């Protein structure tokens, strides 16, 4: 019974999961593999941006800086001989800790001041990445970053990450982990307190919620996953430069988030795949494509302020509301009677 219900309610999630698992068997093109891996990596980054911006309502404009910290962390540590499996969590934790230190003063500010101070922090990180030559390799960056160390798993035997299929499944596994964490967080009373801060900070405080701590926690978790995505990126792409921590990346993810759907779990993933696809299909317009894209962005913000998945969610709620009312009227029950 429970299985049937889960299948019925979650059919599209199961479909996409099955598709994601089957794709490496169906595809051979190296180019498409690369696009998919980048899509998953940027989905993790956008999902984490969604936590602080979408759910908690704090516009962090330093997200790529934390992605960059994770990337440089893994690059430096693995080139220094540390195993990828140690370097990745350490780098993500460094990103989270730096986030904690940055959040301490900046999250006390309100409104646009947080956005401005994180913007400044983002600029500082990319300047440091470009100029601390002995550590970061300056504007040339770091090349020849080793791929993840092979691991031995029960049933699968030894997995080497030289192989692109293994790389694909590795990023997919981390995306699923990120999704699971975000799902548990946003579906809990802790996650509700993030949304409370976004919706009405004064009321949240009056209800005993320490709004500063809530914002700090959300910021730290978001930066942990940004760092994680960055670390994976460094190891799988093999080279990084200050552009890995650039403002341009943050703005790309912001666009993915706004168009995909703020404060939804599927929106960031949809955005991370859909937008590059739209950009790619507008290639024939050459330099005019940004013009078209800009107009599209404005139209979506005006007509679908909650992005593509927000619009789908609203549409589903409306349809289920109509069905509920019709069924309720037929069976003589009042809609939503049972809490």
């Amino acid at each position, binding site marked *: 019974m429970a299985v049937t219900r889960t299948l019925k309610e979650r059919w599209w999630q199961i479909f996409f999961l099955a598709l994601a698992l089957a794709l490496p068997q169906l595809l051979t093109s190296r180019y498409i593999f690369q696009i998919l891996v980048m899509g998953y990596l940027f989905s993790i980054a956008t999902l984490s941006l969604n936590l602080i911006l979408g759910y908690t309502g704090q516009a962090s404009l330093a997200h790529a800086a934390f992605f960059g910290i994770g990337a440089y962390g893994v690059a430096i540590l693995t080139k220094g001989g540390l195993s990828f499996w140690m370097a990745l969590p350490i780098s993500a934790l460094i990103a989270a800790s730096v986030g904690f230190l940055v959040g301490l003063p900046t999250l006390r500010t309100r409104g646009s001041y947080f956005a401005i101070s994180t913007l400044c922090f983002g600029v500082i990180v990319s300047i440091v990445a470009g100029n601390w030559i002995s550590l970061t390799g300056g504007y040339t960056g770091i090349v020849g970053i080793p791929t993840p160390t092979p691991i031995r798993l029960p049933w699968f035997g030894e997995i080497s990450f030289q192989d692109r299929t293994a790389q694909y499944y590795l990023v997919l596994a981390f995306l699923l982990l990120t999704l699971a964490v975000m799902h*548990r967080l946003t579906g809990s009373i802790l996650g509700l*307190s993030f949304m409370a801060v976004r919706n009405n900070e004064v009321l949240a405080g*009056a209800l005993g919620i320490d709004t500063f701590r809530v914002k700090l926690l959300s910021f730290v978790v978001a930066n942990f996953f940004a760092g994680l995505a960055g670390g994976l990126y460094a190891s799988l792409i093999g080279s990084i430069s200050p552009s890995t921590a650039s403002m341009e990346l943050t703005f790309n993810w912001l666009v993915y988030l706004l168009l995909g759907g703020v404060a939804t779990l599927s929106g960031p993933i949809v955005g991370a795949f859909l937008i590059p696809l739209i950009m790619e299909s507008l290639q024939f317009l050459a330099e005019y494509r940004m013009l078209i894209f800009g107009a599209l962005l404005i139209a979506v913000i005006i007509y679908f302020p909650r992005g593509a998945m927000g619009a789908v969610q609203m549409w589903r709620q409306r349809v289920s509301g109509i069905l509920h009312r019709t069924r309720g009227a037929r069976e003589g029950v009042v809609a939503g009677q049972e*809490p």
Partner: protein
Amino acid sequence: MLLQVKNLSKNFSGLTAVQDVSLEVSEGELLAIVGPNGAGKSVFFGLLTGIFKPTSCSVFFRREEITGMKPHQVARRGIARTFQTTALFDQLRVVDNLALGYRLRTKSGLCSTLLHTRSWAREKQRVTDRVLEVLKTIGLSHRAFHFVSTLSQAEQRRLAIGVALMGQPGLLLLDEPTGGLVQRDTGEITELIRSIHQEQGVTICLIEHKMRMVMELAQRMVVLNFGSIIAEGPPREIAQDPKVIEAYLGVDHFAETQ
């Protein structure tokens, strides 16, 4: 004594909003604070709950000094409040709003939330039970899963009281809970406040303009004018105080209460 306020004053860059107010609220009491618009009633609530920093004063709640504490620290000590303009989480559902009112009684942090530990599950059950209980008290069980933005003004007022009630406060501060409501809805809210006070034994401090409601509910009344207390005592006596009639009630009202 549940709440003790000594010489509370607040200046907003030269403008005195509250001046030298001292009052006490005993356990189980229903105290009404009345006064004309701009008398400093809402600022007084804001000062008690840490939204404004007092210029000078000392406030004690259950014998502990809470002067200058942050809003969430005051709330955790057992003072809950509603706001004059209904404040709710309008992007969330009724149940979510109520659950947030109980957040101060829960301890689940990041790890227990992610791992769904046993204590987390127990806490979740406690939140659900309390939400169902309060939904019943405020009469919104049939609206549990609706978004706040779809609720009527009267339902939103009831929900705001429910949210404040969720954390089982020792003192409930209600700021004009019937503001902008028609008579029938006012009657329902009056009954709700009465039942919270009498059946659940919650101490209530009520700011209200509707004198009939105040007369029905309050055991004691404090009248504020230009930030100072001009009268204090049982509602019947206060209604006949010439100072109060002149400053707030007006002669017509005096005739009506006779």
